[in-house]
């Protein structure tokens, strides 16, 4: 493949065929919401990853005199009940929340889509996979988490260190307990798609199942997957806060957006900035991912792209 392409590019007067990804990019660029969403998302990433180099206060440093202070020059977003700087905590929290949100969402999406497509496409495994989905839907989440934490926390901590270990554990836990809805939705769509004429046409020319799934089925179930993805990020960020609240997540002095929002809730009347900032951060991040998803979906749909 590489040989062939390098030799063709040497031919004079031949313009390399545009890859379809360029078309996708062109279409994506015209989607105003998507561009704004992407820009905002990148801004959030810069804020949480580069921000700490500019705003150098430690998120865990306690300055007890600044306790419960409102916004000021020293603490633009105020300080919490122990006098920790909220701006630094939002930045530190964002790093964890975005990382957890994205990876857990991806994990649940991959598992969900995989199970859904297999179940919908191959009737033989449908029953088994869907009963497995029923099982996971029925499992009581909290005891399951307690068991997982009990069994795997110490080995993971020993192998990857305290922070990495917990991160892997949390992403895994959220991922494997939230893929079921995606799987059911994808399966439903695949069941309907499978009976459509173009699938019949593709099959009649002898398309093998893996190409069938990748080229014909998957692109057509993209929109529910995109919705699941955006909702999944929000769910993962909130679930993470529930986990650390129960003592199953990150150590208590480790800020995350969901946890900041939870801790701030009681302070709603006295220090509203304590809930406004983390609440806004979660909402706007999810919103921006939603618009990126919208744009991607449109860009990947050849029917729209052609217009």
């Amino acid at each position: 493949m590489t040989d062939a392409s390098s030799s063709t590019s040497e031919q004079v007067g031949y313009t390399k065929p545009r890859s379809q990804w360029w078309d996708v990019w062109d279409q994506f660029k015209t989607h105003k919401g998507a561009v704004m969403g992407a820009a905002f998302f990148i801004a959030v990433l810069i804020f949480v990853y580069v921000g700490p180099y500019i705003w150098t206060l430690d998120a865990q440093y306690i300055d007890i005199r600044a306790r419960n202070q409102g916004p000021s020059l020293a603490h633009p977003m105020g300080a919490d009940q122990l006098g920790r700087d909220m701006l630094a905590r939002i930045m530190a929290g964002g790093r964890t929340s975005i990382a957890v949100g994205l990876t857990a969402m991806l994990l649940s999406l991959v598992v969900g889509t995989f199970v859904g497509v297999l179940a919908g496409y191959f009737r033989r495994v449908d029953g088994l996979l869907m009963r497995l989905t029923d099982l996971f839907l029925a499992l009581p989440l909290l005891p399951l988490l307690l068991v997982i934490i009990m069994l795997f926390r110490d080995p993971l901590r020993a192998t990857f260190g305290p922070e990495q270990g917990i991160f892997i554990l949390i992403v895994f836990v959220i991922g494997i307990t939230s893929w079921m809805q995606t799987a059911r939705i994808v399966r439903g769509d695949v069941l309907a798609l499978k009976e459509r004429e173009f699938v019949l046409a593709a099959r009649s020319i002898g398309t093998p199942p893996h190409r069938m799934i990748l080229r014909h089925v998957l692109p057509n179930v993209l929109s529910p997957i995109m919705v699941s993805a955006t909702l999944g990020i929000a769910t993962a960020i909130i679930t993470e806060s529930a986990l650390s609240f129960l003592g199953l997540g990150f150590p208590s002095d480790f800020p995350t957006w969901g946890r900041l929002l939870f801790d701030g809730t009681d302070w709603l009347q006295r220090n509203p900035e304590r809930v406004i900032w983390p609440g806004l951060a979660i909402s706007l991040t999810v919103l921006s991912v939603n618009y990126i998803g919208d744009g991607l979906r449109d860009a990947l749909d050849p029917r729209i792209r052609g217009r």
Partner: protein
Amino acid sequence: MKFRHLVLGAMAAFAFAPTTAMAERGTDGQLNIIYWQAPSTLNPYLSGGTKEVEAASLVLESMARFDETGALVPFMAADIPTVENGGVAEDLTSITWTLREGLMWSDGTPVTANDAVFTWQYCTHPEGGCAQASYFDGVDSVEAVDDRTVRVNFTEAKPFPYTAFVGAESPIIQAAQFADCLGAAAPECTEANFGPIGTGPFAVEEFRPNDVIVFAANENYRNPDQPAFSRVVFKGGGDAASAARSVLETGEFDYAWNLQIDPTLLAEMEANGIGTVVTAFGTSVERLHLNQFNPDPALGDIRSTAEAGPHPFLTDPIVGQALSMAIDRSLLVEVGYGAGGQPTCNVLPAPELYASTANDDCLVQDIDGANALLDEAGIVDTDGDGIREYNGIPMRVLYQTSTNAVRQDTQALVKQWWSEIGVDAELRNIDASVFFGGDPASPDTFQKFYADIEMYTNNFSGVDPEAYMANWRCSDIPSPESQWQGANIQRFCSEDYDALVTEMSRTAPLEERGRLAREMNDMLMQSYSIIPLIHRGGVSAHANSLGGVRMSDWDSELWNIAEWYRIAE
């Protein structure tokens, strides 16, 4: 329904009340109480939880209860038996209670000594799993001398005989109602467990487990003028902050229990002027336990046991002393406890007779002193990473506690102070149902103590510390052989201490017992295996229109609910 009780209550009051009575029974309408953890049953012998015991204390009573000073007040008994009045035998092997004359259950039948005998049989039945069985420890037999006289015989001399039938945790139940509920049959008596018949000021009207209880005034209550309220709604659910809000901000409830929320917020809610925050102190102490055995995970299953050997540095009292000096207890109170806490340097802070004053230096934070102490002892930072080494081992500790907002704030503060004296702490919080659960398979229980330092609150019920101080005997160290049971959590062991425990169990004079308890307390404190932080009290709130609240931490905080009344606007 409400109207009927109102009328009946008023009639009853009219019939019996002396004409000078200020309040009359049932004239003050409905009382709304919120417990954010709801009671799951009204039989305190089946569930020993505080919420169940306190809810049941409206209905079930005991011979005597403790008031807010820890003094005994006769309830079902006519008076408090003592050696002087002959109620307690000279050799301290029995106590004789006399019931009040004409005492009646809420169904109108008379209370007899047989009810007390039955209660003892009920709780000591081997298959019953009675949660308050320890109240009957050392009781040889309970006998009915006559209809109104009950004698409790002990197996050996009992210097403090006020355990069985004293306090909200060991009330007397009606023999007729529970006759078929002995032993294994106990849980099947749902009707009796959810609606016990008692002698208290209220009787159960409706009980919904873990949700709400409706009580009506007991028409046969011994004081014809009480209770002032005709009805009590006892709601459960939610969290501490919302319970506080419903009393102090919206005024939907009259009384809220256990409001452990940020003191700043509580003070601001109180400033609305609708309600008042009240506190009561008992014996609860929030403390740090310093593991005296080695909890290194590399040791596998033998960690935190005698086989693992001593802890690399926490057995040295100098280290413990430095850790204690670095802590600013007053600030911990200010940030997390407010009126509900006081700094303390003793694991046995009350009653006054037993409280030592020998360790009060710790009340003032002294980080420089702590640093100097460690420097002098040669415990210094040898590799320049900011953490001191003890014989070459860096002083890093795993510091665990149960999940609770105040505890996590305390952890964060303590971690920072310790970092200033060159000790690095990794924080861990564990769900309370696991941490305080005794599952031998879980690595996270407080008894297993697979950490260097852990923090929680403990106390003792009643006013006598003998059993509590005996917790730190060598034989009480949790180990795999004992299924990790045992209350000597920090694994402290000293022959001298064990000798004092034995001496106390043989000493009767109160003054002498006080001296022994203080000596034991000081011995523990100077070992620095345990670092007391906060003497904690109960925090509750009541509406300003509610009068008569005398909160006690020695007994149910609702112990005198019969005297509560509505203050006229």
